[in-house]
């Protein structure tokens, strides 16, 4: 059993606080992704779990055992680094088996583990090569192989795909997913790419400025973002946010007046607002429909992607709005566009950016 428990973890470099109190529970066998913008502390948090950074305060437990004073190599974790960090002077075979040799395994024990890992990652024919003779994807696999042979309880990945080209990234993404399925180990994966997060994770942890903004499954974060930051970070293209004011409209409904004067009535779902309260309306581009009555906008840019068409338009007050339309939709630049919006898909955030209404279509 290797659940990972973080309690009130903080990290400071001198006077600078990088991690400002993180509580997190990662279940055994879970694939957990830390996602957030650069400098949000996601890599630091991972390195603290690995034992490469000291914990300033708080407690970290892996498999129920307190880890703060345990050496990185004794934590039962293995890490795949962003730069792969392969040892350039060693062959693939030596790279993979180095950790086993250092922990005092005998050659007879190492050989079968090495073979198994190499087969699993299709590295068998490359075992005698040096890292400099491998392609990016192959190096990546060696780095993963080095982690696998140690049979860790927890795998840590630090932006492992960021040095690969787009096609290879998609391929490795599925391979890592398959690996997780086959090994059943706990995996913690750091990325700034929300597509990676959405496609791989059981649980996503959105970090910003050293604190957790929200923890949840990919679809939970997509449908029920807790605040404006998560709403903007998860989902591509980004959620549209339009400022306005809200007033109660009777029968539990809320009327939102947008900046350009358009009015939208939402089902409050139990939420209440004070009259004239300033709010932000959030609506994803895919929940807007061009050619229906609703908002009025002027087309600024159209991207015809074949499967879909993206319109970037400006409302009367100048604010930008992105619309994801059918691949056959057409509109000339500069022409006016009616945009219908589904009230059930509208999110509403208060002045502090916290969600009042979730536009959760799965309800």
């Amino acid at each position, binding site marked *: 059993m290797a659940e990972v428990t973080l309690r009130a973890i903080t990290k400071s470099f001198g006077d600078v606080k990088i991690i400002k109190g993180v509580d997190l529970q990662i279940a055994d066998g879970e694939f957990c992704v830390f996602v957030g913008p650069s400098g949000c502390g996601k890599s630091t948090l991972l390195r603290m779990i690995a034992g490469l950074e000291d914990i300033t305060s708080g407690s970290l437990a892996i498999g129920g055992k307190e880890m703060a004073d345990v050496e*990185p190599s004794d934590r039962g974790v293995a890490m795949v*680094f962003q*730069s792969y960090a392969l040892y350039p002077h060693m062959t693939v075979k030596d790279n993979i088996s*180095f950790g086993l040799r*250092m922990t005092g395994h005998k050659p007879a024990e190492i050989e079968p583990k090495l073979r198994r890992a190499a087969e699993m990652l299709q590295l068998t024919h490359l075992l005698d090569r040096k890292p400099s003779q491998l392609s990016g994807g192959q190096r990546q696999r060696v780095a993963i192989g*080095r982690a696998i042979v*140690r049979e860790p309880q927890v795998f840590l990945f630090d932006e492992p795909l960021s040095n690969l080209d787009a096609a290879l990234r998609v391929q490795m993404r599925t391979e890592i997913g398959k690996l997780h399925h086959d090994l059943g180990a706990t995996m913690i994966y750091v990325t700034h790419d929300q597509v990676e997060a959405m496609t791989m994770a059981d649980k996503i942890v959105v970090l910003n400025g050293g604190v957790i903004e929200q923890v949840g499954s990919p679809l939970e974060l997509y449908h029920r973002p807790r605040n404006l930051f998560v709403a903007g970070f998860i989902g591509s293209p980004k959620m549209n946010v339009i400022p306005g004011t809200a007033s109660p409209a009777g029968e539990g409904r809320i009327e939102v007046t947008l900046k350009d004067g358009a009015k939208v009535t939402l089902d409050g779902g139990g939420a209440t607002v004070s009259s004239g309260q300033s709010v932000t309306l959030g609506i994803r581009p895919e929940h807007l429909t061009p050619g229906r009555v609703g908002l009025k906008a002027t087309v600024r840019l159209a991207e015809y992607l074949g499967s879909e068409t993206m319109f970037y338009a400006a409302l009367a007050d100048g604010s930008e709005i992105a619309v994801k339309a059918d691949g056959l939709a057409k509109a000339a630049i500069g022409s006016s566009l009616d945009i219908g919006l589904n009230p059930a898909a509208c999110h509403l955030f208060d002045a502090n950016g916290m969600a009042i209404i979730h536009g959760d279509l799965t309800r």
Partner: protein
Amino acid sequence: MALQRSSRWSQRRLAPWLFLAPGALLFLLYVIIPIGQSIWISFYDWDGLGAAKWIGLRNYSDLIDDDSFYTSLYNNMWWLVLYLLAIPAGLAIALFLNQTVTGIRLYKSLFFFPFVISQVVVGLIFSWFYAPDFGLLPRIIGFFTGTQTAILADERYATFGIIAAGLWPQIAYCMILYLTGLNNINPEQVEAARMDNAKGFAMLWYIVIPQLRPATFIALVVTVIGALRSFDLVSIMTAGGPYGSTRVLSYFMYEQSLSEYGTAMGYGAAIAVVLFAIMLVFISLFITRMLMQERNA
């Protein structure tokens, strides 16, 4: 059309040689030709001014019977062996200085200092350090043993005293080479090794030192060549004495042909040729290794 193609072709053929010409010409003039001349002169009896007399291999046969030659050769061997200590010592200091502490730059420059000052100054400083009466070392030895030892006046210790002086800047040189090498090691690799349970000496032996191979190679080259061509310190500190016991080949050559007392150009040239032959062994080894590495890369 055909003309154009052929002119472009000859341009491509010629251009590399034209670019090489200035360097090659200077190399020829100042290195290759003098080597040939030295070898040529070593077959003559010549005082540098008068008529040169062809004596064939006589200079070399004289050399074989000359005790001073064996002293020089023997001392050069000690130089070579002890100078190599500069490599591990430089590595040790580099490892020590390769950390982030306030003021580390100051410490680094202090350690680098002996390499910056002239060999002549190094020789003088160490001469004073060894000097009886006012030198620090004889006083320390005197404090413990009751008798003062004049290092540079004692045949048994003089050469080692000079080598110690030479090691001081040489260690600094090796240290700089290793500091640069350490800078190039990917910190993630060190972290990966930590995760792989490589600690302390294992980390150094399996991860750090193998990656410092280019630095070690350069350090070896400059140290071996530095040891073989040692001259300035011998000249400053003892002038070959006492009783010629600290001579090395290059100093012996200078004594024989260029000093106030020596005008034996042919004999000096023969010594130079022997020194050149010894160096050639090492240089060939280095070049072979470099070529092999280039082929593998």
